[in-house]
């Protein structure tokens, strides 16, 4: 019963609010989901893991959850990994433990619920559920300009969600489907004219949630202001919801998306190059990471653009796996980076690049882990992001046959320049923070102890496993799509 993934954190959050020991409960709950998540990787089957419950008859909405296909599974895996590490790494301010840990759990539950839902309504609703505690946490327990950041992210995401909701409702009504279940929706056909409009709404709606250029300016301040676990969960997990949704809903509006391909390419390039340059100019570690996470969304979009250009998963079989691997990799790496940035803040009291330096001397373990995460995020082979990025680039050239370049190929080439840009800012930040002569604030910094290291090591291991052997994730994608009552899928599974 995949609904357990959602129930455990929610029940734990309630238990915390009722007075259970906050950190312990949260750790147990998130640990349970982690074990379940890892377990489901090894033994998932369509009928065992799904549940469908009609909650409303008109419009016909089901509380339907389950691993729709390998993509859901991978995203859930990402979610449980980041949730557990976020809880583990979280350090609640004195007296606010209840709010802190229950919010983290609720964000996690929302994210997991969205990835597990096989019904469009709950897919949307769970994401919204996760946003509320995000706003609260940033506004109440954040640092720096938290109020402003919280308002910004609230308004942006609310606006994006509304646009998205309009798109989803249009989608459902245009499809003529009786229910909101994915399997029914995906089986329907939508009039091409309506598709254009729906696709535009979906791109803008999801785009705001993913911080697609020019809707990106909420991300960096929000992540900089947010408490570390929230930044980890939002940048690592929740942000992937938009891309996940685009890929999931793509087959229904494939021709509509085609109409916007040019725009999509321009915007994703702006994400990579424009935001890349913005990132270079950042003076604070957390702002830099926030912007870098915006920038890397462009690569996932690139895979999506390749998919759109090819016209379907059959014509470009690499695009979806590439996007999924990169989503996973980016989620893990950015979560690790935010985690470690928070450690830097705790140890030195500042994240201004100009005030840091030589931290590697006093904190070699931190420097190693940060270096690993940083290298992962700039796509070093052997770490997960490279697997994703190289597949994305391959997907960009999948249908290239040695003639002139198409839009996607040009985009791929320019995106490759983004890899250089990301190396520039990441190495610059690493150089500024960890290398060079030590300064007073870093001289006395204490290195990570064992318990501090555990979450970082979990994430780093995930990066390494996927980086060294991406087939570990890719093999999950190969399993046939499954959903409750989906006859065809059970047949395939039986074969």
């Amino acid at each position, binding site marked *: 019963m995949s609904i357990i993934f959602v129930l455990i954190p929610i029940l734990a959050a309630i238990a915390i609010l009722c007075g259970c020991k906050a950190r312990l409960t949260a750790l147990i709950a998130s640990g349970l989901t982690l074990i379940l998540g890892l377990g489901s990787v090894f033994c998932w089957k369509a009928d065992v893991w799904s549940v469908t419950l009609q909650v409303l008859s008109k419009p016909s909405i089901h509380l339907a959850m389950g691993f729709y296909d390998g993509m859901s599974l991978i995203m859930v895996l990402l979610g449980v990994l980041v949730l557990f590490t976020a809880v583990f790494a979280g350090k609640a301010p004195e007296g606010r433990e209840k709010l802190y840990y229950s919010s983290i759990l609720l964000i996690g539950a929302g994210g997991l619920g969205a990835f597990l839902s096989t019904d469009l309504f709950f897919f949307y609703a769970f994401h919204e559920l996760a946003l509320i505690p995000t706003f609260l946490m940033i506004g109440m327990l954040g640092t720096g300009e938290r109020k402003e950041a919280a308002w910004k992210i609230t308004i942006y995401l609310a606006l994006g969600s509304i646009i998205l909701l309009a798109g989803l409702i249009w989608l459902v009504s245009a499809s003529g489907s009786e229910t909101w279940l994915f399997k029914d929706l995906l089986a329907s056909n939508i009039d091409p004219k309506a598709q254009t409009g729906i696709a535009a709404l979906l791109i803008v709606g999801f785009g705001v949630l993913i911080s697609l250029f020019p809707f990106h*300016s909420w991300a960096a301040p929000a992540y900089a202001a947010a408490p570390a676990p929230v930044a980890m969960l939002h940048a690592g997990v929740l942000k992937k919801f938009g891309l996940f949704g685009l890929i999931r809903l793509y087959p229904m509006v494939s021709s509509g998306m085609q109409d916007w391909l040019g725009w999509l390419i321009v915007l994703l390039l702006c994400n990579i190059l424009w935001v890349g340059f913005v990132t270079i*100019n950042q003076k604070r570690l957390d702002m830099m990471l926030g912007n870098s996470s915006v920038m890397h969304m462009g690569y996932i979009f690139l895979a999506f653009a390749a998919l759109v250009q090819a016209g379907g998963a059959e014509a470009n079989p690499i695009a979806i796996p590439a996007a999924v691997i990169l989503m996973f990799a980016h989620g893990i790496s950015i979560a690790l980076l935010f985690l470690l940035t928070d450690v830097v803040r705790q140890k030195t009291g500042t994240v201004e690049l100009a005030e840091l330096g030589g931290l590697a001397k006093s904190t070699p373990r931190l420097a190693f882990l940060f270096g690993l995460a940083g290298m992962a995020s700039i796509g070093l082979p052997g770490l997960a992001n490279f697997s994703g990025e190289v597949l994305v680039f391959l997907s960009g050239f999948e249908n290239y046959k040695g003639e002139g370049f198409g839009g996607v190929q040009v985009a791929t080439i320019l995106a490759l320049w983004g*890899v250089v840009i990301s190396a520039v800012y990441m190495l610059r930040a690493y150089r500024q923070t960890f290398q060079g002569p030590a300064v007073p604030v870093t001289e006395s910094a204490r290195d990570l102890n064992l318990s501090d290291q555990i979450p970082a090591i979990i994430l780093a291991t995930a990066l390494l496993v996927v980086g060294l052997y991406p087939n570990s994730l890719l093999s999950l994608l190969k399993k046939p799509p499954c959903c409750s009552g989906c006859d065809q899928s059970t047949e395939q599974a039986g074969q």
Partner: protein
Amino acid sequence: METLAWIILGLPLLSAVTIHLGLKSSKNLSAYLATGSAFITLVLALIILGPETENRAFEWATIGDLKIEIGLQLDSFAKGMMIVVTGVGFLVHLFSLAYMKDDNAKERYFCGLSLFMFSMTGIVLASNFLMMFMFWELVGLSSYLLIGHWYEKDSAADAAKKAFLTNRIGDFGFMIGILMLWGITGTYTFDGLSEFFDGAHPKVLVPSVTILSVSILLIFMGAMGKSAQAPLHVWLPDAMEGPTPVSALIHAATMVAAGVFMMARLYTSIGVDTIGHLWGMDTIAWIGAITSLLAALMATQQDDIKKILAYSTLSQLGYMVMAVGLLDPDAGMFHLFTHAWFKALLFLGSGAVIYACHHEQNIWKMGGLQKKMPITFLTFGIGTLALCGFPFTAGFFSKEQILESAAHSKQWGLFAVAALVACLTTFYMLRLFFIAFLGKNRSDKANHAKEVGPLMFVPLVILAVLALLSGYQFLADNLSPLYNHEGFHVGAPFIASISALVVGGFLSWKLYFNAESDPLANNGLFKIFRNKFYIDELYAKLVGYAQDTVAAIVHFIDELVINGLIVGGFSRAAGGIGRIFGRLQSGNLQGYAALFGLGVILVIYLTVFVS
């Protein structure tokens, strides 16, 4: 055989991981472990020498028809290159045991070396371009780590960053090239490429000659980054900030030669004949020639012993690239093979000197070392002769082949450049030799220098032997990656190289033998050489202006227009409207009542009287 090859690849990685995870506290043990693994790989590399063997690859990423594989290409080319890598690698490890004896972070250093051995082995044995690209980046990483070994020094940290970023720019082109090649041929394995171009589909070539040429030039861009060809050469001299054995291994013998190796691999896969039909291949040769000339000129005025060697490396790499561009990868690889030994020798020799002189690197503060350090003096001298191409040393044969191929393809411009560079090489190497080793001591540090211990001079001696002999057929045939023995004959190349040697030697002797200071230091032209043609300054400005300014402008626009005007405009508009309506919200009950009354009147008016 196959298992042995996998062990060669895996052992250094195992060593690196073990050192990092388990041996942080026992520094010496980690040093021995790394050296031991290097030794074993050398032995194994010698064992597997021989004809091509089949090997099973394992799938790294599989999506439908796309299979990215990690496999080993165990042909004689790769196996020969492995000798260079593991041979120099082992000797450098050995040398490092002594050189890095007192370093605080010895384990980190040896961990980095092991990681490098792993990645370099990966490049050499890679069976396809994507795998090569992965290890390509990984050598970049290990180079980054080792250059930045003394990261507390700003200069080292900056040099490491510069090296990595410059390589990234090269890799940018490399990746595009791979992608395009994959688009054209549908394969990226070397076997697949040779199959494709093996006359099986000759027609396919016709429409995509341009594209194919572009893709090969782009792949060459990767080689430009890694092999430090102009204009991406700036990182290599700076990379001398790393420990000297690292410079010997990575930045002289192996990694920087990977670009040449990769191009040779590409040429042999596609077929030199096919390449010959493409346009733009002269560009490669000319880039090599220009790099070689510029670097040689710059080397004439450097005072830092390592910098001189670094520029000479650049110059020699230019030679190799020129050979590649001249469609003679055999000559390039042969030069790579001989160069690896004598340049490693020179670097380790300089390391010994630096070690003996308590980390003094300025040659003008040395002098008279021939008495203090006779073994170092002798081996360094052999290395210098080999580099100058003194007849019947290893360098002579390989350089000869490159000149020959230039003459053969009637590229007289290139030939002239090559000959000039040969002359300059002799000039600056003898300058170095005269100033550093002969004459009298010019500083206390040089005065107190002692001969280094056996752990250091044994590698020097071995390398000196190889520097003398590796050009001869009996060794080259067996060990050199690509060796195409042509009988030695006296011709234009021979005359050119001998006269270059004589002219360079004479000038150097005239100017620098027993000199106290550089007689050319105040010459305007040589000042330009000393300042590396101001290329570094230019780049610093360019990067400063182009990148940072663009970044600042973009960020400014981002903040002003997107965040300020568009988003801020919306937010201000919403706020303004809110304020207007807020004013209506006076909190005055009577006002509300009046408005309510007005509303009622309006409703009645509209419903009753209007219609």
